[in-house]
């Protein structure tokens, strides 16, 4: 926040504001934008000639949007705070591993929601430990391979669209495909003959209990703490992308939404239920032709969606979720639309009855009984006053488990 009390000069015009007070403002802004939407869509207005009203509404909506952005901005803090704490850990890591480590930080000024920043330290420390412990070689080994004696870990942050990308990269030995694949097969993560894409394979190093280190150190390698990364990323609606080149190093990128409060979503209807999906995971919306949805008899009647010569697995929400006993679709109902989501585990095609809208929604966490809804981040309050379930496509593609 840059607005300041006029007399405060010594502290560079900054004000300390309790976070509850900002939270209260955020809640009010959210309610404001909902009531505005409700007013504007009031059924009483249907059929009226409202030229001036429309213009005024347009301006009002713009202002509400700006107030929303300003309120969201207020909660943004630089990731620097987290990065500084991590930098302090490097000395500790050097001492524990006996390796020489240099940490290079960039993009520390990148802004992120305070609520997100507060939860980033543990998962990032985990990734950092992994890099120091498994990624970097010992000084002798590095010299033998013609690398500088001191290993480097690059910690960087940048904003790409509505996402902040935090990258932990090392210049170590890289991931060992053969070793990780055999271990992953042993644990049943891949079939014995399966040759997964590198990006799919590398992700398994963050599976709980997965570690290929021969000697277990007290830093990492015990397979504990792995959950902290996966669970935090799921809670923050983030994604993990791992990339590695043998001999050159490993790069772990965490893609996290800048703010958790407002969400740009596609609203979809299936039967009487409404679902919302963050816009960035929707890769395509398609209307399937008659032969585009072959049903396989194997594997309990799995369906595929044929899209430009590729097969995308189909997930029917009415089968995925429990407790849906809607009457069968009328034969004369308009054909369904297929929404293709991109997830870390590949694309997923989800048939819905219709796409309703694209709108910024206010997301509420699922409390109490509602927390039992699988594959959901929360519920979205729509401008119409309706409630939609915000789908977590990552959990949808893995069948509801939190991986």
């Amino acid at each position, binding site marked *: 926040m840059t607005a300041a009390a006029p007399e405060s000069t010594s502290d560079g015009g900054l004000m300390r504001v309790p976070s509850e007070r900002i939270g209260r403002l955020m809640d009010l802004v959210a*309610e404001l934008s909902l009531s505005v939407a409700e007013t504007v869509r009031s059924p009483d207005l249907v059929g009226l000639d409202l030229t001036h009203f429309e213009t005024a509404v347009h301006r009002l909506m713009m202002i509400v949007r700006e107030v929303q952005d300003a309120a969201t901005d207020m909660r943004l803090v630089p990731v620097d705070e987290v990065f500084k704490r991590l930098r302090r850990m490097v000395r500790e890591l050097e001492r524990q591993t006996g390796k020489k480590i240099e940490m290079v930080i960039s993009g520390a000024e990148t802004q992120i929601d305070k609520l997100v920043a507060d939860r980033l330290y543990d998962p990032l420390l985990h990734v950092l430990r992994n890099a120091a412990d498994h990624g970097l070689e010992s000084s002798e080994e590095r010299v033998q391979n013609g690398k500088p004696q001191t290993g480097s870990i690059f910690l960087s942050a940048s904003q790409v669209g509505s996402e902040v990308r935090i990258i932990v990269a090392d210049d170590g030995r890289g991931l060992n495909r053969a070793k990780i694949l055999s271990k992953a097969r042993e644990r049943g993560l891949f079939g014995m003959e399966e040759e997964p894409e590198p990006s799919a394979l590398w992700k398994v190093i963050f599976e709980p209990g997965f570690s290929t280190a021969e000697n277990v150190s007290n830093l990492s390698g015990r397979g504990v703490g792995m959950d902290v990364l996966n669970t935090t990323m799921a809670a923050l609606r983030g994604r993990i992308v791992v990339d590695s080149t043998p001999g050159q190093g490993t790069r772990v990128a965490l893609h996290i939404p800048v703010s958790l409060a407002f969400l740009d979503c596609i609203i979809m209807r299936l039967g*009487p239920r409404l679902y919302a999906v963050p816009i960035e995971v929707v890769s395509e919306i398609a209307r399937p032709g008659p032969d585009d949805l072959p049903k396989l008899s194997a594997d309990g009647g799995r369906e595929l969606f044929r899209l430009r010569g590729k097969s995308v697995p189909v997930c029917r929400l009415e*089968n995925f979720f*429990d407790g849906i006993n809607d009457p069968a679709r009328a034969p004369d109902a308009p054909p369904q639309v297929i929404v293709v989501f991109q997830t870390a585990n590949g694309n997923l095609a989800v048939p819905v009855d219709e796409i309703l809208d694209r709108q910024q929604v206010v997301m509420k966490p699922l409390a*109490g009984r509602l927390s*039992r809804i699988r594959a959901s981040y929360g519920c979205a309050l729509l401008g119409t006053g309706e409630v939609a*379930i915000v789908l977590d496509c990552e959990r949808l593609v893995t*069948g*509801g488990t939190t991986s």
Partner: protein
Amino acid sequence: MTAQTKIEDMSAPVIAAMGEDENTIADMYLTFDLGEEEYGVSIAGVTEIVGMQRIMPIPDMPRYLRGVINLRGKVIPLMDVRLRFEMPERDYDDRTVIIVMEVEDAPVGLIVDGVREVREIPPAQIDRRGQISRSGARSTIAGIAQVGERVAVLLDPSVLVSDGDIAIARSAEAG
């Protein structure tokens, strides 16, 4: 404060009708009807009583959780207590109300046939036996109260909401 307080305005927060004496709140119960039976919940957890609203169905819930309502920006799941107790389903009418409660820090609305009254029931009039069912699970019944000539079954909302007494039957085909 009299022992019985009729609820005149159903939409008014019950607490407002209760007066300030905190000591009595512990013994105050909101009683309601389910068919011919009378039930009650401690007023301490009740935040308000609202009329029937448009229910939006949500996935992954048992049949007795009918969906959610948006109550002034709060999303509240609704439990049809009739269905919860496997009583016959009944169309909602203008007596049907939603008792909105705060149970373990989360809001929940109970759909009941109609509310009766808010009344004081001293502990001496409540039979607390039978809180553990035969299966060893906690019962939804917190006690049986003698109210004049009638009997009111006092419910434990946390068991009611958590399904502590029943196993959730997950359909076999669910992933």
